[in-house]
């Protein structure tokens, strides 16, 4: 339920959280000017899982929306492009399995790494690098809103900001809600042994509207918050390369940076940048995903506003 990578840091930080906050940019000069190393924010597993999420999510969105908005010519052509509705349905279910697998892998590896790093549930769930929303997130939200309105400075965010936590749990919520209703629709005969037949109709509404929420949110808010913010425009590739320039870490995650400096662990998290070709590949992948996502948004808006029935 939380990032385990900075296990030691987390423990230390948990002890002296407030103290560190007072001196955020104490060791701002770690790298020599010639040092091109970058901060490693995401492990290969995380990046892989995110990529799996992208692929499965986009696939589910495309195939699912083609059914939801079957009355648009767009949907008809897409269904044909995907090899007809039957194939589209098959792809949808396969992508759902991929997503379930991704989700399960995340949970399993989370627990495995907790054991491996001998963390307690307490430190995992309530430590400074926790992904669970806490009091500080509320404070940071309030601080952020003040900053937006020019009433205060930008809050000193830690490893996970509140909007990143929201995105993270949105997936949990989505998997549970869309996944459960999706299974109901997949195996209606089995499920109607326990629930009335009309529940299939209810499940249809929940499944499709929740999916609309998920796609709409991911392809607009999430894209903006994490990839397309003007200061990072046109693309923040951290989730794909795993690397974050140190200056960005200092600027966007000052509290995490400070904690790493305090414990002296920062050095462990620095790596040479990915080869240029790899970055280019990631960029291409990311742009493709973004392109598909935006197309879906345009399609949804078209379908809901101009072609709604």
């Amino acid at each position, binding site marked *: 339920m939380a990032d385990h990578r900075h296990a030691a840091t987390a423990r230390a930080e948990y002890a002296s959280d407030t103290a560190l906050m007072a001196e955020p940019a104490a060791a701002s000069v770690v790298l020599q000017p010639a040092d091109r190393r970058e901060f490693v924010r995401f492990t290969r597993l995380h990046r892989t899982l995110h990529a799996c999420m992208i692929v499965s999510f986009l696939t589910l969105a495309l195939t699912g929306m083609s*059914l939801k908005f079957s009355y648009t010519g767009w949907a008809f052509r897409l269904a044909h492009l995907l090899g007809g*509705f*039957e194939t589209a349905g098959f792809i949808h279910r396969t992508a759902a399995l991929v997503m379930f697998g991704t989700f399960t892998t995340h949970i399993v590896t989370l627990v495995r790494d907790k054991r491996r790093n001998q963390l307690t549930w307490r430190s995992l769930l309530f430590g400074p690098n926790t992904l669970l929303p806490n009091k500080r997130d509320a404070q940071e939200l309030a601080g952020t809103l003040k900053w937006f309105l020019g009433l205060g400075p930008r809050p000193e965010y830690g490893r996970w900001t509140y909007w990143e936590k929201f995105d993270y749990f949105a997936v949990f919520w989505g998997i549970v809600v869309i996944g459960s209703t999706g299974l109901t629709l997949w195996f209606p005969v089995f499920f109607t042994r326990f629930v009335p*037949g009309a529940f299939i109709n209810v499940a249809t*509404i929940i499944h499709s509207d929740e999916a609309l929420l998920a796609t709409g949110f991911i392809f607009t*808010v999430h894209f903006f918050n994490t990839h397309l913010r003007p200061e990072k*425009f046109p693309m923040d590739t951290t989730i794909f390369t795993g690397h974050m320039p140190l200056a960005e870490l200092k600027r966007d995650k000052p509290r995490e940076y400070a904690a790493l400096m305090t414990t002296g662990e920062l050095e462990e998290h620095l790596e040479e940048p990915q080869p240029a070709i790899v*970055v280019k590949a990631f960029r291409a992948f990311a742009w493709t995903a973004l392109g598909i996502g935006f197309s879906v948004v345009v399609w949804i808006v078209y379908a809901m506003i101009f072609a709604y029935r």
Partner: protein
Amino acid sequence: MPGHRFFRDAAPQQKRTTRARGRCGQRLLAFILLSLLAYLGHAAAIQQPSKDDCLACHGEKSLTTKRGGRTVSLFVDPKKFAASVHGPLQCTNCHADLEGKDLPHSAPLAKVNCGSCHSDEFQQHAKSVHGKALARGDALAPRCVNCHGNHDILPVKDPHSSVAAIKIPYLCGQCHQEGTPVQLNRDIAQHDILSNYTESIHGEGLLKKGLIVAANCASCHTAHSILPHTDPNSSIARKNIAATCTKCHANIELVHRKTIRGELWEKQANTLPACIDCHQPHKVRNEFYSQGMADADCMRCHGDIHLKASDGRSMLVRVNEVASSRHVKVACSQCHSEVNASRIRPCETITHKVDCTACHEAIGQEYAGSTHGQMHAKGDPNAPFCKDCHGTHHVLGKRNPESLTFSTNVPDLCAKCHREGQKAAVLYTGKEHEIIPRYTESIHGKGLLKSGLTVTATCTSCHTAHHELPASDPASTVNPRNVPATCGTCHHGIEEQFVQSIHSATVTHTNQPLPVCNDCHSAHSIRRTDLDGFKLDIMNQCGHCHAEIAKTYFDTYHGKVSRLGYTSTAKCYDCHGAHDILKVTDPRSHLSRANVVATCRKCHADATRRFAGYLTHATHHDPKKYPFLFWTFWGMTALLVGTFTVSGVHTLLWLPRALQMRRQLRAEEAKMLEGGESSSRPAPEDKDTDDGRP
């Protein structure tokens, strides 16, 4: 006894009836008594002038008198008189006013009254046109003597008699032929009576072949009761004509079965065509075709390849065409009637086109009622006539593959006019277009034209061959009311199901239009129902009437996936049935409580009753009918709107700050670059790697 023969033969018209035979007996008796009386009178030497007394003067050829300024012979040939039927009689038997007169009598005698003996004939004559004319004082009116003669009357059967069968035409013809005062000055509708009769089959039989049983004038008009055909008592009145003709042509109705049911001929003589309607009286030939016209006579001219009509049409007739046609046994003149064999060019008397209905009577009536026939009757040049579909000399039966009307040739035949742009298609104002190409691609068209199934429905199967009418006509076979029966002629099993379904007018009584076969299957582009195109279209067809229910169907999974072109999903007819649709409340319905699970199981093998509770026509827009769907939908919508509002506001507020940060970072970057240029940093790769990063 010669008189016996005479009297029996004197009434040939009546001899068939028993009444006539009775009368004949009476006459015989009267004659015997009369003869006896005459003999006794003579024997008793009563004071009466004897035959010899009369002949003493009248036996002289020189005996004449002056009447009206003219010299008139009063000569009576004793030999002829003796040989006549009246030979045994005394003069005074007829010239009754001689009695008691001194001989030689000076005053002329009164006209003889034949009626004193021949009372029946006398009365018949008095009532006839001749008798009435006589009563009017018409100088041209014939008396007994004009036909029968006076002192030289011979028995009818005697070939020398003036009223012998073989002489009758000329006897009547004395007055009734062209140029006579009667024909010129009296109101007689027929013309060329004698010449026409002479050339008629009757005339030919009688006059050329000497068949004295052949009908002469008196056979039809009677000898004495001659009445105009407008008189109901006339032997040639419309209702009597059949009886008159059948006196000779017994059982003629048996050979006219195709035209007229024999029994009706006499029962409904007023409505049915009478003999004379086809076999005109007196005409060139009494038959309406000229049996005497041999085909070879026609071919003498029409075999010439260069023969052209005045308008340039070739008048060539190919004999082999006729010989291989269905009319091989029909003579030219049977169709091209009105020919006159007596002319050098017999066909010059033809004034009408060939009328097939003369033989094909029933079909002709069908045609007359059809749109084609109605147009034709109005003189529309676009209207197809018999020959336009059947051809002329090369008419073949519809079962002959070479025939224009063979089933596989029918679409092309009708296409001549009904293809887009052709003369019928441009007149047509209905909904059906591209009829021919659509039909060709339809299941019927493919079956007929590609698979060669000659039993497949072609144009005439539905529209009929001769009685085609627009669908709006209640009598049309393609009128919605008749369509199920029309399709049912082949698809009988379907029709049986359909007539019991809710869509049948026999089950549902409504003013709303009910669907029939072509509303779902279309008229001309009927497709195979097991192919995708049909399966997907059919849902829209149901939706034409069931708009709401179709809309809600498309809101559910089945509807949505079918919209995407998936045909294996449940469509209207998979659940409701195709032709056997019934109300769901009907226990026999596929969706009744007893049957619904089985219906679901057609696709969902393990379906349970609870599974069947799935709402196949659910909508989340109806809070009363489906409150849980309604509230689920609006709950979800609220969640969506809420989430997007909050995150949207958050993002929008962020935007100015983010832009501000971007500007700062760019400024810092520019500063760093300026400082870095002196120390030859950063490397170009760095820039590339960090491209786009602030």
